[in-house]
């Protein structure tokens, strides 16, 4: 395995984030703080507790998921799309690197960034709400796998996209609505019965529910359903990436 090659890509991608620290780190953290102020403090103070959890604390897992999913997709998609755009993918393809190693480099960096942002938001939330995490180890694992899976998804989007518009279409028009409607700010049982069933078609519901379970021990769906769903989602992303690299789709001529 070309460990130095993987590390070079990883380091390069991490350095890119440090060069654009405000965009990479400050911006998502600031957005989340604003959510806390609006939904947690202003509106949340007038809301009833949900499953014996204050509304302010209740939205923490949802806000973390919302941010890390968006960040994972954006970081990974831009990470691989930018070399395609400026033409530097020739370096990756002519180097003694396997496709798996290229994916590990880019997805690893995007995962690290999103995971770090998730932890920073978690720390920030302690400034606004009283929070106790029931299953901290599970929470970290679930957060990591979510970051990794959405980074894989972002990598696929970056490979498939031919221009910046396409790069933004999936995150903006598909992922953002799904994340917002996936129970970040409410539980599914707060919805009318028809919409409850409809919401269960949203894959993000299972992820947010699983992550929330790790905080409070309760979720919209059983935790095993969330875990199985997460594994299926990860497997689909890996399969698509395997197909892309096997065929060289949009990478090799």
């Amino acid at each position, binding site marked *: 395995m070309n460990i*130095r090659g993987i590390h070079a890509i990883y380091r390069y991608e991490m350095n890119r984030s440090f060069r654009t620290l405000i965009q990479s780190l400050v911006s998502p953290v600031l957005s989340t703080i604003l959510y806390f102020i609006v939904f947690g403090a202003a509106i949340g103070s007038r809301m009833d507790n949900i499953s014996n959890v204050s509304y302010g604390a209740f939205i923490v897992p949802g806000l973390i998921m919302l941010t890390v999913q968006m960040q994972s997709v954006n970081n990974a998609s831009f990470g691989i799309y930018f*070399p395609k755009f*400026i*033409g*530097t993918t020739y370096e990756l*393809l*002519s180097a003694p690197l396997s496709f798996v190693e290229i994916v590990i480099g880019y997805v690893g960096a995007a995962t690290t960034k999103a995971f770090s942002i998730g932890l920073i938001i978690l720390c920030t939330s302690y400034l606004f709400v009283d929070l106790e995490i029931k299953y901290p180890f599970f929470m970290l694992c679930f957060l990591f796998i979510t970051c990794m899976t959405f980074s894989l998804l972002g990598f696929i989007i970056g490979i498939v996209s031919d221009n910046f518009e396409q790069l933004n279409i999936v995150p903006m028009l598909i992922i953002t609505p799904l994340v917002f409607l996936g129970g970040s700010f409410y539980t599914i049982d707060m919805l009318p019965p028809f919409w409850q069933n409809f919401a269960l078609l949203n894959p993000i519901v299972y992820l947010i529910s699983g992550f929330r379970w790790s905080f409070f021990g309760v979720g919209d769906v059983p935790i095993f359903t969330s875990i199985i769903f997460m594994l299926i989602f990860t497997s689909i992303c890996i399969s698509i990436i395997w197909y892309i690299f096997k065929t060289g789709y949009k990478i090799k001529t």
Partner: protein
Amino acid sequence: MSEIINVQNLVKKYDNNFTAVKNLNLKIRQGEIIALLGPNGAGKTTLISTICGLSSITSGLIKVNGLDVIKDYRKTRELIGLVPQELALEPFEKVINSVKFSRRLFGKKDDNEYIEKLLSKLQLYDKKNNIIKSLSGGMKRRVMIAKALSHNPQILFLDEPTAGVDVELRKDMWSIIKELKNEGVTIILTTHYIEEAEMIADRIGIINHGELLLIEEKRELIKRMSVKTLKVKLKKTLDIIPTKLKKYNLKLIDEGKSFLYYYNTGNERTGITSLLSDMNKIGINLFDIKTEETSLEDIFVKIIKE
């Protein structure tokens, strides 16, 4: 010299059914400079791309140092450095970081001494901490070469390295290429500038429509293909070529004040002596003579037209 690249029956067909490379065979010897000439769309870049791993192969076999470029891609790619046609560089990165990044991609340990030496050789040392975006086109081209050489490859592919650069820089590039050859690097370059091939290549290959039309030692090719022209200026004007000189296929010019005689330097006899002797016999006196040699460019145009 031993053979370092062996391309056997290579075919590259694109999804739209366009065949860019047609059953191409090519052997490249270690340590030589080979120039691939051909018009736009001839298949030069596709050939390089398949050897370097940028393009998939439809059929055929490519071996680098005796190893299959698909099965043993790690070992073969370690030997190759590539400078593509386009200036493809991360604009916001420092020169030195960009070069170091390329070296690391090849799994090599950092070697600051080697990198700094390389930058000095390419006259980039003073610019090592500059952001790539701030460099001129010529400097960017040098950075591309530095990146390609960062892992100390044995083979260097230069896809139109001097396209769009000024004459002075082009000459600098030639001296860099010659220096690399002296260090034992095998260099394969594609170019539109015939003069470039003439100046630096050991062998010349001509590609058109995905086929390798010929590959030959430069000197041999020029010798074999070159037709020299002897221009004879006469003391007295001629209206027509005399019957005794018809066999020489002379061409009257300058309203009969001169004629041209074409001969091949590759032939055992040029026919000049007998021409001059025959002229003397029939009393035609010459005033001056001049010879002109066919350039590689003329040869290239001739082969492409054929």
